[in-house]
C-alpha cells in the first residue's frame, strides 16, 4: 500500500495508472489537521505526518491564508478523501511539482496564446437572439479589458477568429510577467477552465465575480438551457464543477500574489 504521507499517487507498476494521477478516493487516515511554519513556508500536518506532494516533495506554501484553506480542505473530508474536490491542494501540488515542466516564459506564452481562440471574441451570426446576447454580455467585458490594458482586441464572426496584434500580445506578456510562478500556474489554470484570457483577466482584476465569469464563459450553454430546458445532472453538475475550479484558481492567484502587510489607518474622530 502506498505510504500515508504521500498525497496520493503510486508508481505506475503497482496500479497501472499514469504516473502523476492520484487515486480518486481513499479512506481518511488521519484525525487532526494542523499547520506549522517551516523553513520554506507553511506546512500541513495530518496527525503527526507532514503532507507531501505526489512527487514526494515536502508540501510547503508561501501564504498562511492559503495553508489554512488547504488544511480546511483536508479537514472537511469525511470517511473518504475525495481528491477531486480538493482544488487548492491540487493547485499547490502543481505549483510545487510542476509536472508539465514549464518555465515562466512557457507558461505565459501558453496563457497569452489563448487570446487567439478566446471565447468572448468568437461571435455567432445565427441565431440572432444569441448574437445579440453575446454582444450585450461580452462587449462590455472586452471593452473594459481593452481600456484597462490599453490594447485593441475586437471580436470576429469568422471561423479563424479575431486578428490579435503583436503589440496586444506583448502587453499581456509583460503584464503576466509581473506575477510570480505560483500565481501564474493559477492564472493559466483559470484561463483553461474559462476558455478565455479576457474573462480570466477581468476576474483576476476583480472586475467581475467568479459566478459572472463562469456565466459569461458558458453563455451559449445558458442560452440553449433557457431555450430547451435544464438537465440538472449534466448542466448543474458541470456548472458547479466549473465554478469550484475557477473560484479555486482565482483564490489561489490572489493568495499567492498578495503581501500580507496590514496598513493601519489612523482613526479620525
Amino acid at each position, binding site marked *: 500500500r502506498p505510504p500515508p504521507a504521500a498525497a496520493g499517487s503510486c508508481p505506475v507498476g503497482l496500479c497501472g495508472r499514469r504516473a502523476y494521477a492520484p487515486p480518486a478516493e481513499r479512506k481518511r487516515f488521519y484525525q487532526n489537521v494542523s*499547520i506549522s511554519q517551516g523553513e520554506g513556508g507553511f506546512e500541513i500536518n495530518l496527525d503527526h505526518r507532514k503532507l507531501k506532494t505526489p512527487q514526494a516533495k515536502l508540501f510547503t506554501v508561501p501564504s*498562511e*491564508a492559503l495553508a*489554512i*484553506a488547504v*488544511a*480546511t480542505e483536508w*479537514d*472537511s473530508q469525511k470517511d473518504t478523501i*475525495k481528491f477531486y*474536490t480538493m*482544488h*487548492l491542494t491540487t493547485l499547490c501540488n502543481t505549483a510545487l511539482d510542476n509536472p508539465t515542466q514549464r518555465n515562466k516564459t512557457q507558461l505565459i506564452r501558453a496563457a497569452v496564446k489563448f487570446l487567439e481562440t478566446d471565447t468572448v471574441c468568437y461571435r455567432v451570426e445565427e441565431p440572432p437572439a444569441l448574437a445579440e446576447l453575446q454582444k450585450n454580455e461580452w462587449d462590455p467585458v472586452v471593452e473594459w479589458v481593452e481600456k484597462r490594458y490599453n490594447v485593441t482586441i475586437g471580436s470576429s464572426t469568422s471561423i479563424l477568429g479575431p486578428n490579435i496584434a503583436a503589440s496586444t500580445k506583448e502587453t499581456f506578456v509583460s503584464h503576466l510577467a509581473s506575477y510570480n510562478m505560483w500565481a501564474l500556474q493559477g492564472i493559466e489554470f483559470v484561463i483553461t477552465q474559462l476558455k478565455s484570457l479576457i474573462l480570466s483577466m477581468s476576474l483576476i482584476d*476583480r*472586475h*467581475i*465575480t*467568479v*459566478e*459572472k465569469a463562469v456565466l459569461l464563459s458558458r453563455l451559449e450553454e445558458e442560452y440553449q438551457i433557457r431555450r430547451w430546458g435544464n438537465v*440538472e*445532472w449534466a448542466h*448543474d*453538475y458541470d456548472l*458547479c*464543477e466549473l*465554478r*469550484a475550479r475557477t*473560484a*479555486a484558481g*482565482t*483564490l489561489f492567484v*490572489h*493568495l499567492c500574489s*498578495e503581501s500580507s502587510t*496590514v*496598513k493601519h*489607518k*489612523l*482613526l*479620525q474622530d
Partner: protein
Amino acid sequence: MAALGAPLRTLRALLRELRHAAGRSYRDSPAYRHVLAAFRAHRVTSEKLCRAQQELHFQAATYLCLLRSIREHEALHREYHGRGERTPQEVAGLVGFRLPQQPGGKG
C-alpha cells in the same frame, strides 16, 4: 470592482459554509478564526472605498463560491452519479431472477 453586495452578508454565508464543512468544532477551526479576524481587522476604516477592504471582500466572496460550489457538486454527484454499478444479484433481481447457489463454491 465587481458588484458584491453587503460584506456582512458574504461573511455570514461564508461562516455558514465553513460550519457545513467542518462539523462540530467549527468555531475553533483555523479557517473560521482567520476569516473573522480578517473581517474585524478591516472593519474600522475612515474611507468608504478602502481598497484593502474591497480586496478582502472579493476574496471572501470567491472562497464562499468555492465552498458552496464544492458542496453543491458533491450533492449532485451523490444524487445522480454516486450509485455505481449494480451487483449481479441486483441485476438478476430486476427481472425477477435469483442467482444460482453453488454449495461448494465456484469450481
